[in-house]
């Protein structure tokens, strides 16, 4: 025992040296990728310094005056910024919940379709919107919801609306519109994984349940949903960090002056101040805050997942 104990470090070192040599190809490749990562992902992080400066293009990062937390104070004293955080988080959560629930629901219902051709056809059609750019999708949403768009036409003809509604003039509709746009675009695509998970559930479970006289709903509740649990959790964790990223293109393309109080998101605020008003320091401070929130969210959720013994990201 003791003999082995003393020789072990030396042996390990020798081993690892040999291993290093054996893995030299892998190491070189890894090194190349690390260099790439440093240049394109980590170097820009030094730009965060600007958030603590009164950054002037002329003076550069090294010449600009440091102002401490001035810009962060400015942000948290600004009612607009607080509203923007609210908008971002609310829309992020609504979108995440709406797309997840619809994807699961769609997957379950599609799984109940027994006609193979029909199933295949519906599924193929369901992916289509995922491949369209947001420019196209927002254009479609905008047209469909305009005063003489198809939605108003339909609902007025069905006498559900008395007169056409100008959806983009009312604050209370906007979050819903954004959520529905996401649902329209991603339901089919997101359902892929859920559907695959459902099909991988052991059919014996369903047969046993049927023997016990379980109905369709009970089978879904007691077999399908628990079977999806770990998939749902891992996907939620993966997407939770993006909750705060959930707002740029759609809101930028669909927003307007009247509903700005509910449509403006952190990204738009940062773009507006950081680039539009050329206050690069303020813009960067907003960006730093955003990264901070998203990392916090992930760590918290990862921790919760770990505690409850479920899947986790890292």
């Amino acid at each position, binding site marked *: 025992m003791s003999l082995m104990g003393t020789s072990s470090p030396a042996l390990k070192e020798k081993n690892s040296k040999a291993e290093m040599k054996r893995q030299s190809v892998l190491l070189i490749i890894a090194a190349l990728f690390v260099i790439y990562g440093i240049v394109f992902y980590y170097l820009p992080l030094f730009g965060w310094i600007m958030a603590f400066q*009164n950054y*002037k*293009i*002329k003076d550069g990062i090294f010449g600009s005056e440091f102002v401490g937390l001035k810009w962060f104070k400015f942000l948290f004293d600004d009612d*607009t910024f607080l509203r923007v955080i609210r908008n971002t988080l609310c829309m992020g959560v609504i979108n995440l919940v709406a797309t997840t629930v619809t994807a699961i629901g769609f997957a379950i219902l599609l799984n109940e379709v027994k006609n193979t051709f029909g199933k295949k056809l519906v599924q193929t059609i369901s992916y289509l919107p995922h491949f369209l750019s947001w420019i196209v999708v927002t254009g479609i949403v905008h047209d469909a919801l*305009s*005063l003489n768009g198809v939605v108003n036409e339909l609902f007025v003809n069905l006498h559900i609306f008395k007169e056409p509604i*100008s959806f*983009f*003039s009312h604050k209370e509709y906007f979050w819903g519109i954004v959520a529905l746009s996401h649902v329209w675009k991603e339901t089919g695509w997101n359902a892929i994984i859920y559907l695959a998970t459902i099909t991988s559930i052991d059919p014996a479970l369903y047969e046993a349940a049927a023997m016990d006289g379980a109905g369709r709903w009970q089978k879904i509740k007691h077999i399908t949903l628990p079977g999806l649990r770990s998939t749902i959790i891992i996907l939620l964790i993966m997407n939770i960090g993006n909750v705060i990223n959930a707002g740029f293109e759609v809101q930028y393309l669909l927003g*307007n*002056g*009247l*509903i*700005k*109080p509910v449509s403006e998101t952190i990204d738009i605020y940062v*773009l*507006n*101040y*950081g*680039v*539009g*008003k*050329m*206050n*690069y320091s*303020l813009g960067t401070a907003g960006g730093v805050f955003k990264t901070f929130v998203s990392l916090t969210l992930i760590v918290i959720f990862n921790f919760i997942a770990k505690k409850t013994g479920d899947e986790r990201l890292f």
Partner: protein
Amino acid sequence: MKSKKIFALTMACMMGLGAFAGCAKKKDEILNWKFFAAMFGSEINDGNEIQELIAKDTGIRVKESWLTGQTSSEAIGSIVASGDLPEFIDGGDGSEDLYKAGYLVAWDDYLAKPEFANLKEMYTDKEWEMFKHDGHIYWANVFNNSYKGKPVSHGYNDEAFWIQVRVLEWDNYPIIETLDEYFDLLERYYKENQTNEDGTKIIPYTALCEDWRYFCIENAPEFLDGYPNDGSVIVNLDNPDAPKIVDYNTTPTAKRYFAKLNEVYNKGLMDPEFAIQTYDEYMAKLSTGAVLGMCDQWWDFAGTVNENFKANKLDEKGYNYVPLGPTIDKGMTNRWYIGATDTLNSASGIAVTTSCKDPDKAFKFLNRMLDQDMHNLRFWGIEGVDYLKKDSGEFYRTQEMRDKWADANYTKSHCCMYSYFPQYGGMSRDGINTMQPGDSNDEFFAGMAEPLKKCFERYGYTAYNQFLRSTDGVVGIWYPMYQFSNNLKTDTEAGVAWTKMGETKHTWLPQIVVAKDFESEWNKYMEAYAACQPEVFLAYMQETLDNLIKS
């Protein structure tokens, strides 16, 4: 098999890229330079005929690119951040930021040399003084500048409450003096005419609120009170020795104006989508002839709209707009039109950037643009092709030529105005022709549809600006004050106040117009507005004004 295919595909791509690189290489000594304007514009085609002529002449081919998909400030902001500059630029409101970042080449040394006499001639010494930052000139505004300071214009380029001539005709060409009369006329007309011939629903009034173009709803109070377009503030001259800065957003007139819009909206006379329309949708709406009236500036809508009217023969139905200059009460003088003077806006203009490797050549190019033959080529076109010359030396166009110039496909491949480069209005150096064809008497009335012509005749006017019935009068040296506020950024307190005021107005103005209870919404708006500390901004403007008068 598959990998071979992929390989072939890659090779094809590489070759495609090679072709790009090949394109970029110069085939001749003509330099390919770039220009960017923080404005909307339409690109002209590569190989444009007049552009090639100018390139042969000057050795420079300037590829113009315009604002797309971003606001102007975002575009300039990202250009400043990246330092990726074209050789020539017009930064609009961002001009000062380009200068602050050290990206612009000073003009002074060039202006002092005789070979740049044309550029020097653009402005008087006193006017050039207005362009100076730290004692140097970095850009020159090319608009609203007539040769030798003598404007001739049948047009009216600025703001007004516009109205379709058919509405005036319907009411037997009345004189509209006040805002109430204006809306009353729209209402009466609309009562009897709800749809156009083609079945489109008539929209009596609309107001654009998008981005910086929200001036269409925002700045009318200054005009309604009888002041000229100082833009961001009123300069009150009750005491001529001590002009006073007044905020037009909080005046009783402002409240009455928005109350009127609110009333009009609730009566259903206002476009229900006014607050959410994009500029594009607004233009499309106007172009169908469905909108009876709106407040806007001529340059913001007229070119496209009139062209669409013409193309679809809608001008024959009396859809063309003429400007009206109402005031809030009867019997006031109005200053919508401040007379035939050039308005100097020193806040923006054409600039040469530090990315330009040969500034000397760049300024020579700018200088050359102002030579009469070059100016004619840019704006009139090629003699014999685009215009003809009478024995008297007067230029004229045939109807066929006019039609061609109205055809976007033709202009894209043929005309090259370099429209943001140095140019003049007014009479050209020969004393016979106008610098710009649109200012020529014949060109102005030719191609006018019958209803519009009749409207001019019935009122006895020969120019658009006469419709405004404005009092001529001199404006102070500070005019327009907006040149001192448009460049304000959030790095100063006045700038923060200015920015927040703008944001507050952007959010609130549409809301008070659509409000069910105007009074309470207005009070809420005033509260939000006061929270922006407008007094800080106003104090800054007062100080700027005082300094200007002193110097």
